[in-house]
């Protein structure tokens, strides 16, 4: 059953695969950092007293969450060149798309985190004469961020898996690299198995890290 498989293509294509993996990791890290920063701002807007901030932020988050990621990827790939007037390439488009898309999901996590901080913390900050930004920056957000750390990382594991969808616009990520290598060496079966094993190992390792982190945070409190 496994007799016809020939994994000698794996070492031969390794440098190529490594490039793809680098892009996937790069995309994950950029979208994670950008997504958490923009997501936190979105969460603050959703919780603000001004309807002018609340409504658009809520609309943005709901829209991103109800459209398939693949369609979002196609949308950005189509619209960005129309706005800037020149094509920007699949890789750059992917970086922008994933940051914008993930912001909605990280935003919801941060919103839950902010709402979980006790109200007395905010009052204490205000009693000390802090303004909104100081209360947020020095009191509420650090606590919200730490409480939500495991959830933020779990979302990052999902994000890493989702990066494979840039296949749709032809960006050279881990999956696309395996796809190309499989076609070049005429060994697609082995390459797909290999790349699945890489994804599996990385995601399993990350989930294990999250579980460890959860235990450590639980002890700290």
């Amino acid at each position, binding site marked *: *059953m496994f007799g016809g498989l020939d994994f000698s293509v794996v070492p031969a294509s390794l440098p190529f695969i490594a490039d793809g993996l680098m892009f996937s990791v790069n995309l994950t890290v950029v979208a994670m950092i950008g997504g958490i920063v923009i997501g936190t701002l979105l969460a603050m807007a959703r919780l603000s007293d001004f309807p002018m901030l609340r409504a658009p932020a809520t609309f943005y988050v709901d829209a991103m969450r109800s*459209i398939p990621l*693949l369609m979002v990827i196609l949308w950005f790939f189509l619209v960005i060149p129309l706005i800037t*007037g020149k094509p920007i390439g699949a890789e750059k488009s992917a970086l922008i798309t994933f940051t914008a898309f993930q912001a909605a999901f990280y935003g919801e996590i941060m919103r839950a985190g902010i709402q979980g901080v006790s109200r007395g913390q905010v009052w204490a900050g205000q009693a000390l004469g802090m303004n909104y930004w100081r209360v947020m920056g020095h009191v509420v957000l650090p606590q919200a961020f730490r409480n939500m750390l495991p959830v933020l990382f779990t979302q990052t594991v999902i994000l890493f*898996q989702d990066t494979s969808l840039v296949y749709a616009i032809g960006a050279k990520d881990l999956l696309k690299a395996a796809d190309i290598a499989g076609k070049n060496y005429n060994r697609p079966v082995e390459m797909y198995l290999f*790349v699945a094993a890489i994804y*599996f190992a990385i995601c*399993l390792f990350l989930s294990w890290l999250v579980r460890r982190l959860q235990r450590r945070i639980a002890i700290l409190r």
Partner: protein
Amino acid sequence: MGYHWNWGIFLEPIPGGDETYLDWLISGLGWTVAVSLTAWVLGLVVGVAMGALRTVNNRWVVALATGYVELFRNIPLLVQLFLWFFVVPELLPKGLSLWVKQDLPAKEFVTASICLGLFTAARIAEQVRAGIQSQAKGQRMAAQALGFSGFQTYRFVLLPVALRLVMPPLTSEFMNVIKNSSVAFAIGVIELTFVARQMQEESEQGIETYLAVTTLYFICAYLANRLMKVIERRTQIPGTVGGGR
């Protein structure tokens, strides 16, 4: 931006065919619904079974079910789809392999539904497990005291409650199935995302195309949400905070 709008594009015929783009969209919607519903049914059946197996009193069965969940949750859906489509047929016995590759009717649709169904099952299994484990231990003991077999305990006591408890996460999972069905384009199922890409290329009216497709996805997800809410209301557990009489 110099974009040329043309909202009449949907009624124009496809180059080299007598269908209109609208016909294309409707057939794409049909395939999206078909893949999503098939995968959803498969996901529910396998997911409930796997979730229940993760809570039984047998180490090996639990390990097997846990392995299933970990395997399907830690590989990206698109990669799983390629595994089912390109790799699995190669690993089958000769005769079966040939049949799958040449004679399996609607091969792309069947593959996409199985893949999405088993992927969703792993996620449903986690929720069902949580639903079972959140119940008081006395439930299981009471069932055993009444002389229920293992299967009967799950069928008549644990699962009916667990499934009602996990209705809210199941609702979002149903909407996820519809969104996730979009990956099926990658193996050539002519569903909405496939039609979106194709129509954008042929007609060069990208914005109109994507707006139409996005709206159709949105309507599907909304209807799925409403349907689940109706079921949730009809099956509420009497006497609970959220529940009816």
